[in-house]
């Protein structure tokens, strides 16, 4: 009915490196697989190589080393024009001298469709993003959100094997951001598209992805489903980047099978060892997985430093012997006051052990 179908294909990186000039390594020997029909997010701080990775899929940058496959085909040496990939740019890159309709039809013109098909597909694309009837306008006559949707429609109508998004929401306001990202996800799932999505916003990544690839310093720090990354970060960097985490220095005192006993100050806690050995380690605890109880009790003694009321919950900064941590509690009816003595303990599931040393 829509007239737009998917020809989704997988993307595979094999030992891909990209060096700019002679020194700057933007991407360092990465392997990556994006399964057909899934939405994979490249997430990381700026300068981590995620945009370069995306542009290498598009063919806008050529690899220095390694191979890229789309479907079963080696596209390493193919320029952007010849790859069946389209991209939605951060700046949208709508052609300012063409109407919305001309923009959306642009790629179709070069793909061997006749006039009627081109028009039909372009209209279907505009319909898909909810802009039916806007075809005659110039990009400058649209709002930011509308321009963004035109950019999406323009890329979609080509039925690319892979659709790329380069921080598509960064120029939108917060409310619109949630709405547009939901639309993108909905279209992706409806059409079964393969999408690679670059963002530095972890919430956005968690919300839209089938899989997230966290990048740091030109390499992949960790990849997995949003839940895996959130609940079982591989190291302190990932733990901190995906959602906030309190990183507490702990000592693994005993191992029984896969269960470790850790000591934090005077308190001991048992949790999965995740392959770590005895000795110093770090405990990553999400603010929502902290337990605070008034007065003394089973746990670490601490004092409330700051208490902030944010409507749906309370946010506390708490100082204990091992340092300062951040905690979120749902109880807004009887909050703690600044200076209250409390005892910290941890939820049974949630906190995870990570290695003490950060691999850099």
């Amino acid at each position, binding site marked *: 009915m829509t007239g737009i179908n998917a020809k989704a294909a997988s993307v595979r990186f094999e030992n891909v490196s990209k060096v700019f000039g002679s020194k700057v390594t933007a991407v360092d020997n990465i392997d990556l697989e994006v399964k057909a029909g899934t939405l994979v997010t490249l997430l990381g701080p700026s300068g981590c190589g995620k945009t370069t990775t995306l542009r290498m899929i598009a063919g806008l940058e050529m690899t220095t080393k390694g191979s890229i496959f789309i479907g079963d085909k080696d596209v390493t*040496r193919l320029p952007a024009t*010849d790859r069946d990939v389209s991209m939605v740019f951060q700046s949208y*890159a709508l*052609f*300012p001298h063409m109407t919305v309709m001309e923009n959306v039809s642009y790629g179709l013109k*070069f793909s061997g469709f006749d006039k009627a098909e081109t028009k039909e597909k372009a209209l279907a694309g505009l319909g898909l993003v909810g802009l039916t009837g806007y075809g005659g306008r110039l990009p400058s006559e*649209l709002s930011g959100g509308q321009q963004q949707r035109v950019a999406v429609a323009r890329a979609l109508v080509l039925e690319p094997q892979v659709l790329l998004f380069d921080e598509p929401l960064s120029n939108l306001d917060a409310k619109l951001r949630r709405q547009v990202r939901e639309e993108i996800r909905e279209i992706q799932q409806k059409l079964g598209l393969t999408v690679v999505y670059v963002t530095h916003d972890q919430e956005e990544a968690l919300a839209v992805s089938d899989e997230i690839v966290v990048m740091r310093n030109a390499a992949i720090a960790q990849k997995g489903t949003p839940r895996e990354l959130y609940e079982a970060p591989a190291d302190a960097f990932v733990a901190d980047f995906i959602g906030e985490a309190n990183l507490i220095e702990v000592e693994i005192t005993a191992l029984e099978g896969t269960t470790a006993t850790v000591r934090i100050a005077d308190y001991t806690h048992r949790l999965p060892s995740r392959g770590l050995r005895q000795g110093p380690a770090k405990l990553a605890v999400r603010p929502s997985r902290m337990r605070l109880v008034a007065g003394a009790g089973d746990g670490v003694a601490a004092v409330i430093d700051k208490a902030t009321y944010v409507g749906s919950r309370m946010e506390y900064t708490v100082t204990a012997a091992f340092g300062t941590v951040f905690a979120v509690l749902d109880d807004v009816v009887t909050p703690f006051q600044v200076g209250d003595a409390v005892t910290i303990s941890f939820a049974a599931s949630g906190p995870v052990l990570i290695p003490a040393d950060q691999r850099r």
Partner: protein
Amino acid sequence: MRAVSLERTTHPVLIFWIIAGWVGYLILPWYGVEGFWSFEWLVDGWPLDEDYAPAAVLIGMGQKLWLAPLLLALAAPLMVLGRRKTEPLYAKVLIVAGGFGFAWMVAQGLGIGLRGFNADWLTTLLGPLEDRQFGMGYGAMVTASAFLFLFTQGIAARGAINGDVFVTSAIGGVIAVVSVFVFFPIAKMLLAAFATDDGGYSVIGFFPKFLDNRIWGLGCLSDGRCGVAWNSLVLAVLVGVLTTLLGLAFALVLTRSGFRYKRLLRALTVLPIITPPFVIGLAIILLFGLSGTVTTSLAGLFGVEATRWIYGLPGILTAQLLAFTPIAFLVLIGVVEGVSPSMEEAAQTLRANRWQTFRTVSWPLMRPGLANAFLLGFIESMADFGNPLVLGGNFDVLSTEIFFAIVGAQYDQSRAAILAVVLLGFTLGAFYLQRFWLGKKSYTTVTGKGDAGVHPAMPRGLAVPVYAIVALWSAFTLVVYGMILYGSVVQLWGVDDTLTFKHYITAFRVSWGENGLRWTGSAWDSFWTTIMIATLAAPLTAAIGLITAYLLTRQDFAGKRAFEFGTMLSFAIPGTVIGVAYILAFNVPPIEITGTGLILVISFIFRNMPVGVRAGIASMSQLDKSLDESSLTLGANSWQTFRAVILPLLRPAILAALVYSFVRAMTAISAVIFLVSARYDMSTSYIIGRVENNDYGLAIAYSTALIFVMLAAVGLLQLLVGRTQIGRRTSHGEGH
């Protein structure tokens, strides 16, 4: 469905060039025929007459056997027709065949001339050659192009520039034409700098001539005269700075004020461009000369003695400012319009007042344009020849010195060449200074997002002086043009002030004879030639200029800096030198085109191409690269991207390039004066001839007529190219 070109086994572009190569070799006359545009040869013995025969027939007749190896190079590419681009053989065969074919053509062209071998060592090596050859014709040209583009396709297939055939071919093509029509003649000319009187070459003889006091003397600091180098430098810097400021003032009034009569102002700024250069010089003499209107009336009013003060620096400076301010304006208007209004609006919301906004945002964003405008003014002034000739007095500059070194009694080619080296040094210095000043800042302001802002008005402190300058300058320009118009209808300037149309009638009489309409006026011949040459040259200039600008701003390839240098070179060399260099280089085979209209067209293309390049670069560096990239990811190739996205957004630059090259072709004098022939006389050289005969009335009348013709042409082009609507921006005057 998108086909992936690497898998295709048919290559339309390749097939085209293979066929072209064979057509050039088998069918078209290999050597030059009389008159490039005449097709008499078709009915005059072709293909068997040896003057008109194609290469294959000549070889069949046992002549020009050195052309035979080309057959191999033509046949080889046929092997790869059914193959894929990715196969190594594909690239290898094309590179070898194209490269060999092209190199062989160059070698035989330079090696064998009208009298057999051109160099003695070839004769010693291979023995004397009985046969000889003439300049290249259609066949040779087409075949050479075919070899060149087969070669670039081979390079592309090997993976250069991401295997992009359009970009590699464009680079190859531009390099080839620039080498042939800029480097080659200049090299021949520079060789003359080392020439000794007895026909040999000597490096030792070069230095005393180079360090000559007449070039570098500093006598004017005490009481003598300075060398021509210093004169030219001072003049060019003054002209560069002042034209940039004046051009900026006009651009600001046009874009950032509520001024009502913008169209009028725009027209006024275009006037000096469409004026043959020496005409402004003549008008200034009519005003300020010893018996000029202003001089005599001032002398009468205040009782001061009339002097010849205008001759020298003041006169040349004034004339060049009048002539070159519009060029600066054309460059700056695009830049001033291109500064994104939202940047300025952002600055205003950041508590900058209008003055601070201008100083901290608008001005820095205009810097690339300012640097370009300065560079153009500097180089134009250095190369200008007409005004110093008319107004120079004792103030000698390099370009006129070069002219007199060659045309005057001295006839000293090596001195002319040495002066040209000095001139080149200055212009290249300016070029690098500009680079240094611009640094590595990004000035991209037209992004892919629609822009909804409006330029703010100028701050008051700036507006007042800008208005004053623009008003004064406009008034002055009007007076100068009034003088020209008036001068064309008086009997004899300063002697007999009766009004008359006789000059126009002499030049442009049309009579109705027994054979219908007859153009009996004395100017018609040169007039029609000029129109034809200018019409041919303008679109070619714009095309080559913009393609070059595209390559320079949008593509990365090895040797890009050298490439840019090469394309700017012809502009940095004054027309007088180009004229002489062309005569030296193109009077003999392999390219034998002196005395034809073609040499005029070519000299205009390569003289004016840098303006197209500069205008293109200035506009293209303001187009965000994501526009190209999104077009590429949408499946357009680089040629389609260039055509559908870049070109439409470049309309102002195209217009500038077209107008400028057309007008320059009609007004140029310095190179032309060497290249005209009896058959192809140009308006300007005809007018100079009249001036030399003291026939001022006819000269000015003819010039006036030219001005009106060019005015019409400029208006027509403006209509044809139109304007690109890219934002909601409205100008202030229109009810905003």
